[in-house]
């Protein structure tokens, strides 16, 4: 899986992109977030604290946190968008 972070999520975690082999216990976006929060090597717990302010896209489409994910997916986390 490729995981992307944008805006303040990117700043808090400290990287914009990372690769991860999907752990067997992770089948949904929500489980991926829970898995990341357990990892203390980066500030995931801080970044994902305001979950209601975080949007997720899988393969460039908006999805909800119960969306199933595969190892080949591109998963992006970001705050509500503010373009235009």
């Amino acid at each position, binding site marked *: 899986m490729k995981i*992307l972070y*944008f*805006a*303040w999520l*990117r700043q808090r975690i400290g990287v914009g992109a990372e690769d991860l082999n999907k752990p067997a216990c992770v089948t949904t976006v929500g489980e991926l977030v829970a898995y990341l929060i357990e990892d203390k090597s980066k500030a995931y717990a801080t970044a994902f604290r305001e979950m209601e302010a975080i949007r997720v*896209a899988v393969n*460039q*489409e*908006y999805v909800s946190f119960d969306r199933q994910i595969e190892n080949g997916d*591109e998963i*992006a986390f*970001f*705050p*509500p*968008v*503010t*373009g*235009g």
Partner: protein
Amino acid sequence: MIKVQEQDFDVGGELAAMADGKTDIGAVVSFTGLVRDGGGSIRKMTLEHYPAMTEKRLAELEAAARKRWPLDEVLIIHRHGELSPGDRIVLVATASAHRQAAFEACNYLIDWLKTEAPFWKLEETQLGETWVDAHDGDAAAAARWK
């Protein structure tokens, strides 16, 4: 047509190109969005985006507008990178035989672009950097078109 670019754009040239050589277009409507600095405190704005998703979402929005209104041309240009107050950020333009179709489609496109296109604004003031919060009114504006 979708263009996502760092450089500025030429509104007059872009709009003229939409109707160039055609005689069945009666109306061209455009929306230009500019970096606004109500309080005079913004020194710089940086637009971050998610390139693969931006292109995909904007192309989907164009297709949705073309399905809903009889449009001859659709143009969306969105800049990213560093901008200053007063700079152009975005141009949305629609061309149609009929003016109401052009107005509604242009309004629809910018409303949805604001809530769906993956761009984020970072404002730099004397006090430091702040990520601009999403505006509740934008979601309401987009929902009108459902």
